[in-house]
């Protein structure tokens, strides 16, 4: 166990040198230099920032889709000359009654593969819709995969819109990723007040231009409140233009009455339609509705032909800027809810870094002093291994560009405390062997050999814990699992290669003299 070939030694010290170099990168400012710009990332709890978990509620999308299906179904039933009664939507089902003689006809038309009403998903090997007929009552609903597909597209669209909105706010290095089937995870480093982002994400931003109804209680209208809840108006359900017809929107200032406004321009088709409708409805009021609240309802004085217009409301310049941003980035397909939010201010992050560093240094010193007093020269060897261990650990974290969190720092400190265990096991074993073996070399050799299985077993158990924690833990705690787990591997490496080599050098020089451990 005490012999090292030249090749092994070169490899050993080469590895240590390379990792030390990577560890060093963290302390050099080289943001824009060549290849090696790797660094350990600081977690949100250390650098400050916001973590938001959003849930996409796809039920309104499903509701809307099933309504569209109903319209399509009516057409298809008519085409196939199937008579139906009581066609209606019940929760997420379409229900209707057909006659006995039409059942076969219905079966045939529904099961056709190239059927617009019921597309076939190759990736799931399943259809979008399924149906059942019982006593001539037909029940149609989405299949499991149909629902998954809706959720998936809704999530993807939402992700895109969220990304656009956050990018527009100018937040630095945001992380925006999907999480599971219906969630979006957002990390905004350095942002200590996530208020504006939360407000922007809380809005669906469904913009519609609709005429104010002439009559109070007509069939195709609904009562909608103004944004400040000052009054309600009866608004036509028929939509003239939607937000997606907008080409651009910018905040601006109206010099005439010193208020903030939003200028918008429409795309070609939108502009044409807008021109026609405004021309036909001179003198009527046109309501601009955002998320079922009226922003304003000005009277149409002239036909708007150029496809450009402006929205005025009770805006501050900030709210006009935000509205323009929302309109530019488009409407969310479904409302988002913030189901988890964690924000750490930058000053707390700094305090945590300080506290973490101080406790790491003190813990490190205590262990080093204790080991030296306990084992003297062998203690020194263990300490060299421990310092190297720490450097390797930081080096690996750098190469992986891992995220260091406050619990992660705790994991490093804990590694310091537990890392000496491997050497302690070996030294104690050598002590025992010295009483049996005749020569120092034999005692050292046997000590390393016999301690092996205990060291392996003891470290694998801790490794198991950290692996489980890595997969099931969330947030900062994951950082703890990372440092603890990597710490175990570097511990085994330094104890079994570096410390062994150093102690072999030591014992070779003191073959005959009495070694005290």
């Amino acid at each position, binding site marked *: 166990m005490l012999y090292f070939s030249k090749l092994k030694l070169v490899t050993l010290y080469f590895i240590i040198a390379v990792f030390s170099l990577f560890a060093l990168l963290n302390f050099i400012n080289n943001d824009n230099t060549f290849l090696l710009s790797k660094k350990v990332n600081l977690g949100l*709890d250390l650098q400050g920032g916001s973590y938001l978990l959003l*849930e996409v509620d796809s039920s309104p999308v499903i509701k809307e889709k099933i309504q569209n299906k109903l319209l399509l179904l009516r057409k298809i039933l008519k085409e196939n000359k199937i008579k139906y009664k009581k066609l209606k939507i019940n929760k997420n089902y379409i229900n209707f009654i057909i006659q006995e003689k039409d059942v076969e006809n219905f079966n045939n038309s529904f099961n056709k593969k190239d059927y617009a009403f019921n597309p076939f998903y190759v990736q799931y090997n399943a259809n979008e819709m399924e149906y059942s007929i019982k006593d001539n009552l037909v029940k149609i609903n989405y299949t499991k995969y149909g629902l998954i597909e809706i959720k998936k597209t809704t999530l993807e669209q939402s992700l895109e819109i969220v990304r656009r909105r956050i990018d527009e706010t100018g937040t630095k290095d945001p992380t925006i990723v999907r999480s599971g089937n219906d969630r979006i995870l957002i990390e905004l480093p350095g942002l200590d007040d996530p*208020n504006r982002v*939360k*407000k922007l994400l809380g809005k669906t931003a469904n913009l519609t231009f609709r005429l104010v109804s002439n009559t109070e209680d007509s069939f195709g209208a609904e009562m909608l409140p103004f944004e400040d809840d000052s009054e309600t108006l009866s608004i036509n359900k028929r939509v003239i233009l939607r937000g997606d017809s907008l080409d651009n929107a910018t905040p601006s200032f109206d010099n005439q009455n010193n208020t903030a406004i939003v200028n918008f321009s429409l795309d070609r088709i939108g502009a044409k339609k807008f021109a026609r409708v405004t021309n036909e409805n001179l003198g009527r009021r046109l309501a601009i509705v955002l998320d079922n609240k009226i922003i304003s309802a000005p009277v149409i004085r002239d036909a708007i032909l150029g496809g450009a217009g402006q929205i005025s409301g009770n805006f501050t310049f900030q709210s006009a800027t935000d509205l323009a941003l929302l309109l530019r980035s488009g409407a969310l397909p479904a409302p988002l*809810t*913030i*189901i*988890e*939010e*964690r*924000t750490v*201010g930058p*000053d*707390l992050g700094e*305090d*945590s870094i300080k*506290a973490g560093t*101080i*406790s790491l240094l*003190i*813990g*490190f010193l*205590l*262990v080093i002093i*204790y080991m030296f007093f*306990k084992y003297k020269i062998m203690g020194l060897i263990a300490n060299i291994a421990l310092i190297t261990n720490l450097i390797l650990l930081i080096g690996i974290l750098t190469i992986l560009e891992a995220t260091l969190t*406050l*619990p992660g*720092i*705790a994991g490093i*400190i*804990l590694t*310091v*405390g*537990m890392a*000496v*265990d491997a050497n*302690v*096991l070996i030294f*104690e074993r050598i002590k*025992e062997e010295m009483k049996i073996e005749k020569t120092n070399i034999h005692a050292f050799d046997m000590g390393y050999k016999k301690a092996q299985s*205990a060291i392996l*077993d*003891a*470290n694998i*158990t*801790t*490794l*198991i*814990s*950290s692996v*489980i*924690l890595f997969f*099931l*833990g*969330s*947030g900062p*705690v994951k950082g*703890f699992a990372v440092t603890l787990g990597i710490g175990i591997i570097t511990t085994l490496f330094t104890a079994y290669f570096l410390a062994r080599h150093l102690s072999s050098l030591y014992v070779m020089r003191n073959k005959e003299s009495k070694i005290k451990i």
Partner: protein
Amino acid sequence: MIFNVSKNFNFYQYYKKFSLISLIFIIFSIFTLLYNGLNLGVDFKGGTLIEIRTEDRNVDISKIRTSFLNMNLGDVTVKNFGNKKDFLVKIEMIDAENETFISSIHDKLSLDLGADVNFRRVEKVGPKVSGELLKDGLLAITLALAAMLFYIWIRFEWQFSLAAIAAIIHDVVITMGVFSFFSYEINLSIVAAVLTIVGYSMNDTVVIFDRIRENLKKYSKIPISEISNNSTNETLSRTIITSTTTLLALVSIYLFGGAILKGFSFAMILGVIVGTYSSIFVATPILNYTNVNSKTILKEEI
């Protein structure tokens, strides 16, 4: 003596006494866990947690309490956190729909205290997420126990596996019992601590077991009770030194690592002490009871 060890404690004679003490602690812990339950934090129960720093040193805690009381937020607890300027506020109610919830609290509190307060940390966890986090935490601990059980069973014998798991459960139950008794908060980092305790306790037990196995192979005539006693003695100085260095590191986190890591390091300190104790006084005696002998070991070798 064939073992050539300087220390020779007769642990065997203390087993009965310590078994009784362990039993009392376990029963007490289970009782307090059933009676007091655990003080689940925002992570597992849902709600809002705000760490506040007031720049003015003389803010009275009751002033903050009154301010929150006037906001009608339901159950609110306010306590000092680390030093006099810092407070930790826990609000049970969560207003998930309202994205201006936090900022309106900030404005009202600043108004009531007559100075701008600094919200250093905000954690808002909805009921769905907290339920999932709790489920994941329990799953992690269960999985860790199962994995340990399996690993020891593969590497040793079922007798060793049984004894080691009993010791781990002993450690976890007592640690949780202390948290329940003092009503210390359980959050995500405590789950991390419990998992590390499981790993550490196992680590400590395995070293003794490894020696027992080695000695069982060597000395087939000596009864298990004597072998385990000698093995405990042989590994005793290692047990003490490693526990000491680990505790040195943990105490350093506890004292200097800041208020956020206090609960975590406290749980770990407790776990390391109980874990070290249980390797000697729970795992080893149970192994004795199983009557494991050199035949069980050697059978496996063939």
